[in-house]
């Protein structure tokens, strides 16, 4: 599964020093590990996607707005959970933020408890995503271990074809299909055909891995 070792970090991006100080005190006291940044650029320079956690973004900042930071993260292929803080919620901005994958949108002033709760949820979401990503990674790793024939058998089997049909398509005996299939189930560690179907979907969805 995922690398549980590193604790999650709350990345605070706000140009207001008092907000950075008060929020990091609050969140620190609540047991979170917090890193603060005075601008979107400073955050983007420091952030790597290996760090688990979530991002708290002030929507309005002088140099680079929260939305722009979100866009930059998406362009770079990162999708950490983002919690937006806004002084004044206008609908178009909110819609844009949510479409960009924001997990939350809080209108200031925010009660400390609410902020903590939402951050906790965001971190859970991150953990879930990272676990899922780690799963996919291991599925792909196992998939990479399969022989070409085994991959063919796996793909056809997960498309719902019977051993006989597969044998016909591949021009081999059904018995050979049977043994390939058993080896695929074993190599992939799948408990049944349903799980193998999920694994297959992961592998087909990421053509980068071959």
């Amino acid at each position, binding site marked *: 599964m995922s690398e549980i070792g590193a604790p999650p970090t709350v990345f605070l991006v706000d140009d207001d020093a008092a907000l950075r*100080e*008060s929020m990091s005190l609050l969140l620190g006291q609540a047991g979170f590990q917090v890193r603060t940044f005075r601008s979107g650029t400073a955050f983007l320079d420091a952030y790597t996607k290996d760090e688990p956690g979530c991002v708290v973004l002030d929507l309005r900042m002088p140099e680079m707005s929260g939305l722009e930071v979100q866009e930059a993260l998406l362009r770079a292929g990162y999708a950490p959970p983002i919690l937006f803080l806004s*002084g004044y919620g206008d609908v178009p901005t909110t819609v844009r933020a949510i479409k960009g994958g924001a997990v939350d949108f809080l209108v200031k002033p925010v009660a*400390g408890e609410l*902020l903590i709760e939402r951050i906790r949820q965001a971190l859970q979401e991150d953990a879930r995503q990272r676990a899922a990503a780690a799963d996919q990674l291991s599925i792909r790793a196992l998939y990479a271990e399969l022989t070409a024939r085994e991959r063919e058998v796996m793909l056809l089997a997960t498309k719902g074809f019977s051993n006989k049909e597969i044998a016909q398509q591949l021009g081999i005996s059904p018995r050979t299909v049977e043994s390939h299939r058993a080896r695929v189930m074993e190599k992939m560690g799948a408990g049944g055909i349903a799980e193998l179907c999920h694994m297959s979907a992961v592998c087909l969805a990421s053509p980068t891995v071959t």
Partner: protein
Amino acid sequence: MMTSHTRASRGTSNLSAADLERRLEALIANLGDRDADDEQRALLLDLQVHQIELEMQGRELREARGALEESRDRYARLFDLAPVGYAVFDPHGVILDANLTAARMLGRPRSSLIGSPFSRYLEVGERRPFLSHVEQVLEARATDPENMSLMMRLRPGPEAAGGDRVFQLLSAPRFGDSGEECFSALLDVTAQYEAQAKQHASDHLRQVVLDVLPEQIAVLDGTGKIIAVNRAWADFAADNGASDTLQSGVGLDYVAACRSACGDEAESARIVADSIVAVIARRLPSFNQEYPCHTAYRHRWFEFSAVPFGGGMEGAVIVHRDITERKLAEDHSRRARESAAQGARVNAVGMLAASLIHELTQPLSAASFFGGTALTLFEQGSNDRDKLRQVLTGVEEQINRAGDILQRLRDFLRRREMQMRPVAIDELIAKATALVRWYAADKKVRVHLTHPAPSLVVMVDALQVEQVLVNLLCNSIQAIDGAGTERREVSIAIESHRGEIEFVIADTGPGLPADAGERLFDIFTSTKDSGLGMGLAISRDIVGAHGGKLWAEDAASEGAIFRFTLPLQETDQPQ
């Protein structure tokens, strides 16, 4: 002479003393030679002695009389030739005697004067005063022996040159040959009289001129005493219930009166007193001050001014001018401008509202987070006092910060009268940019000063000038946002020239509309939906009320430039 006839009738009168003695001795010798009784002889001798003594006495008398006559002639000549005219009048004003000088003054021979009524030579109007003068002089003999004086005008006689003459009659009563007489000296005072008349005429003219002026005018001497006032001054004093002496005001020590003023106006009255003294001493070329002088019924304002006398004279003219009408008109336009400015500020804040709310939520959020931390520390039973202090200090600071923002906003929206006070221009710029900071950030427009503002002080209503800056900055930000230009910058520059400073607000927007021109400032014209056109009109009014100018021009490269000037006080000039 008077004594000539007595010489012929008296045989011995001209004999010398020596002759008389000789004759007396001869007589005494004859008496001794003749036979006569002793008694007869003694009698004869006595008679002869008496006769001789009488002769001697008579002679001495004659000598004395001669001396007297000689002296009298001398005095008569003095009387006739004295530089002062003399005349003697009987109780009816008939000339009993007159000297030659008097005759020459009257332009008539003395012979024609004596025995004639003096009234004949007087102007008709002068006759009765003359007769009553004579009467008074004679009546006064018993009570008041002093000379009495009468001024009168004489018709010139045939021997006189020039026109009417003015004489002064100085008279005293005396008892003469014909009883009560009025003895008068005649002085020709025509020259003095004419000079005086001229002076009177000029005084009169001056007074008439002063009186027709609507301003209240008083003339002060070198010590600050009033020596003349005009009618407006007296009327004003009367209207305001001053006593008679104060109404005329003449003789009143104006400077001392100012110094002794008490109550609300004591301080300004003292300044007025000092200034008048300075003007009289010519340490000040002049002094002007406006002041309110309200009654229970209406508001009034006056302008006080003091100017020194010209020439070598010490003193000053002080003028109080009623400027109520001008003040009311100014007041009216000021009020109109203030309420328009107020409206424009509300308008501007409406536009800035979203940004301002954001600005306000910053400290509130921070305070809330600090508070949450404090609560957590408390619930966890923390003993970390340093952290608690940090957190609670944070709460306090952030609440104050929110309060400051509200105060700034309240100040900006407050309706109040124009107040001129010295303000540093960097303070003006800081306040205005603070109000538009978030608005600019939202619109992604950078507002910056091209270089640090010079440390100059201007005498302005800070709020109104701040408003002008806010209006111009918002206007530029909107222009940039509306046009979506690539570069999004508004720069503020301060240029100081001789006697004024110029604010230059340049933007990278689309520039002025081609046909805008002066219409840009028209209160009913706006190129924007938010009504900033009104903001521009009021901005121009405000700058005008401060003695400056506001105008717009297209920049050479890109965007528009708005410029406005404010007069710089000379004392505040650097260096």
